């Protein structure tokens, strides 16, 4: 599974980032609390270019270079194929950042660890970015195995 852009309908409003940050910041998705009390940071960057915009979200590659590269075993893949970071194990070496061909994985704001999209693993239901996209520009796509 991965979050898929439909950039034809991306408004570049940035709500995906707001809700992503809130979902991962320990305040249970409460936007105001997360932004007023926490240090919210979205997992995926919103890219705007020539009137087009999209979020640079994780593709959850089958042969994920970030997992190959991780020196601590912090980057893992769960049974659903979601690539996630065990932040307890991450030492912030950013080898994963270096090898992600999409530039999706980013340092945390304090540079102490890497952060990435985990499809809101551990939270209930749809990833926050998809759930709160006001224009259906994001959707959770099941990867179909191509021949």
């Amino acid at each position, binding site marked *: *599974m*991965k979050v898929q852009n439909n950039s034809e309908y991306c408004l570049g409003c940035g709500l995906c980032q707001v809700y992503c940050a809130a979902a991962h910041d320990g305040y249970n998705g409460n936007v105001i609390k997360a932004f007023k009390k926490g240090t919210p940071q979205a997992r995926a*960057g919103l*890219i*705007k*270019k020539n009137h087009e915009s999209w979020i*640079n979200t994780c*593709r*959850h*590659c*089958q*042969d*994920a*270079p970030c*997992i*190959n*590269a991780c*020196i*601590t*075993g912090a980057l893992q*893949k769960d049974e659903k*194929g*979601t*690539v996630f970071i065990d932040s*307890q*194990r991450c*030492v*912030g*070496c*950013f*080898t994963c*950042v*270096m*090898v*992600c*061909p*999409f*530039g*999706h*994985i*980013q*340092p945390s704001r304090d*540079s102490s660890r890497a952060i990435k999209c985990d499809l809101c693993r551990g939270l209930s239901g749809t990833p926050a970015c998809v759930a709160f996209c006001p224009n259906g520009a994001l959707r959770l796509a099941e*990867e179909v*195995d*191509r021949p």
Partner: protein
Amino acid sequence: MRYVIIGNCIAAAGAVEGIRSADQKGEITIIDGEKRGCYTRPLISYLLAGSKPSSLLYYRPEEFFAQQQARVIAGRAVRIDPAEGQVVLEDGRSVDYDRLLLATGASPVIPGLPGIEQPWVKTLYTWKDAEEIEALIEAGGTAVVLGSGLIGIKAAEALHQRNMKVVIVEKQEQILPRLLSPWSATAATRHLEEQGIQVLTGREAMSITEQHQVELDNGVKIPAQLVIVAVGTRPNQALARDAGLETGQGIIVNRHLQTSNPNIWAAGDVIETRNILSGTAEVMALLPLAHLEGYLAGCNMAGKSANYPGGIFLNAVHFMGMHIIAAGDPNSSGTVLNWQEGQSSLELTIDGEYLVRYISINIPGITGPLTAITEKQMKIAAGEWQEFIKQPSIANLPAAYLAETRRWEDDGSLRCG
């Protein structure tokens, strides 16, 4: 099918995953010469610094091998008998194999300096090394680090965090010579010095005295409670050579990571790998490559044909709050483009339509795509880089790159798990 892996490290873990991706039943045996389990060498400096508990050193937890039904034997392999399909251990036991993987890694180079045998002169390569150094740490004392490669720098940082005075002695004119350009090395050196680490470049240690002194080539004697030797590593290919396998700087393998013996594969720091950029075979002791090589070797051993294209030099290191990421051919030449803003900088080397090297300091977020562009040798018009370097960001990456990544998704060359 009996699979045997010599060495319990990154490549071994990768190999187990590779074998299991194709063969759920075969018997896997790992011969763990260090008898420490599968841990990550680059993390031992964190152990030394006291910033991480030892439990976090493990690359894969013990359950991992149990889950994968891989048996781990503590013991050092001393001989391989290819004719019999047997590995002999130092305690006399032998293990039979159908398919064998050599993941014997590398060892630190010990220069032939006078006094190098002093008990307070150490390498920092294994867990055991870290434990031995731990006993020698003396707050307020001076530690001399010979060599400013990744291990040297991380050792210097760890000892500095343990409140030792640290002096780095580097034979070359700059630190991190395999990673940085002179321009970027200057910034890194300044950063180290600002943090209180003394950096002596273009200097060589001539001898180490019993009086706890390191004598340099200019005659200066530095008092030292502790000396860390970090001047390089070399592959452990004795077993292979003794078994009659072809070797060069490292064990020679084909694109399936197979040695000259069809039942023996090799992966990790012990092999010669194709450098994608130069096209030559080199020892590229890089962790990301080790895992991939192990994984692909495992696939091939289990009968699932997988090609290994080789790799490029790439490294990410951070010390004292500075994040350096660099990739590409250190010996490359071409047009150099620079960008700098405060403590951050980026340096690109462009050779015609190709990006052949980049060095980033404190701007890690942009490096993933740059690595991909370098490694996959994407054609990018030089003008695009001129635009990019004005304000490096993902959005400003060359259009050709963005188109290429979209193509991966569209044509299925990139698959999601």
